[in-house]
């Protein structure tokens, strides 16, 4: 059976990471709106006069075209969309962190339009130097939700009763978020208000912000397994975040 070569034109995408390939090419990992995360080979894109040499940078929306049916597809064209100033300072490191999260957690060829839209506005927020923490927590939660790794935030995972704002909860790997008991005193506790704020994507409360950072860390580590993120290690060497 002979199938024709698949051609995709003018898809909105972000470069997540690229690695050099041979002398003048690179393999670019992109996050696209309708096709999810895919690897593309950008032939000759490292040549001094390549029109796309300076274009294939992370944190800039691009309109790209590619072809191929294999795992590694060939980039045919890339155009600059604009509208997002380049990230600067510590915001670049936040961007690296998000890109590594997507590479590690998002399977290839798995479209997530909602997550893509969220990533787009997140990069925008980082470029306008919005407060970093709420922006990061919100995207982390979207990743977990979209990939089906987020526990229910509105109901107790054991009794199925609604979460009560002034009660304390703990995260159980099997049951999800359950009300804290006397025997769970040495576990990390989350107030009901934090969980409800999270479900409403509301990070105005500082306690919510602190507690949700902890909860996101626990949930993400569960998905990441033993291999820690490279960006976390590098960030520890710099007093940045």
């Amino acid at each position, binding site marked *: 059976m002979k199938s024709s070569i698949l051609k995709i034109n003018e898809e909105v995408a972000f470069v997540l990471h690229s690695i050099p390939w041979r002398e003048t090419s690179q393999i670019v990992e992109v996050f696209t709106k309708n096709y999810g995360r895919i690897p593309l080979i950008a032939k000759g894109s490292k040549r001094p006069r390549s029109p796309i040499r300076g274009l294939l940078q992370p944190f800039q929306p691009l309109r790209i075209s590619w072809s191929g049916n294999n795992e590694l597809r060939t980039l045919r064209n890339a155009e600059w969309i604009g509208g997002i100033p380049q990230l600067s300072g510590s915001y670049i490191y936040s961007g*690296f*962190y998000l890109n590594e999260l997507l590479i590690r957690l998002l399977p290839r060829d798995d479209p997530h339009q909602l997550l893509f839209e969220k990533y787009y506005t997140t990069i925008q927020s980082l470029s306008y130097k919005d407060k970093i923490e709420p922006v990061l927590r919100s995207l982390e939660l979207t990743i977990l939700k979209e990939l089906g790794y987020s526990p229910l935030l509105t109901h107790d995972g054991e009794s199925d009763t609604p979460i009560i704002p002034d009660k304390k909860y703990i995260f159980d790997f099997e049951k999800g978020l359950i009300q804290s008991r006397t025997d769970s005193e040495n576990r990390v506790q989350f107030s009901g208000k934090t969980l409800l704020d999270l479900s409403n994507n509301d990070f105005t409360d500082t306690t919510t912000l602190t507690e949700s950072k902890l909860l996101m860390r626990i949930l993400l580590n569960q998905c990441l397994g033993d291999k820690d993120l*490279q960006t976390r290690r590098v960030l520890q060497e710099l007093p940045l975040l």
Partner: protein
Amino acid sequence: MPDSKKSSLLDELVEALRCLPSVGPRSAQRMAFHLLQHDRHGALKLSTVLSDALNNIHHCQQCNNFTEALICDLCSSTSRDDSVLCVVESPADLLMMEHTLAYKGMYFVLMGKISPLDGIGPQEIGLPRLIKRVENSAIKEIIIATNFTVEGEATSHAIHEILKPFNIKISRIARGVPVGGELEYVDSGTLAQAIIERREAQF
């Protein structure tokens, strides 16, 4: 297996040549045959110079660039301004800066750039050595001349953060429309950044 043992040295040579950038198995084989068949003299010279270079070229104690001496010619020169230090990513970048004839200060060569997703952080590119270079020195200004790529910018930020406590002037080379550049032909990314980073006109 009649011949496989006999040709192993040749195989090893071909394999060794593949460490050169953009040299695949076929070009490596062509190079090996060329050296053995047509240019044995050149091959011998290459092998001695290569081993000499490896034994004698190391990093300058001051600027981290390649040199045979403990401190390179540029760092030991008395005609350079030792109150300014320009930080670049690679020896090639240093040469480009020198070509401009616009800079007469000292250098520090990072030999890389920060790229967290590749596991390359401040330690890996020798930022601790840069701190040592700046400590107890006559340097009054640092010019950061890393690339205007995302990694270059991340590196620039890290340098800025770690050198903040020294209370010296830290500047970044400017970017924008190239000399002789006509707006119509400048790429959109460069033009957008030139608008964002516009400066007051001085006449």
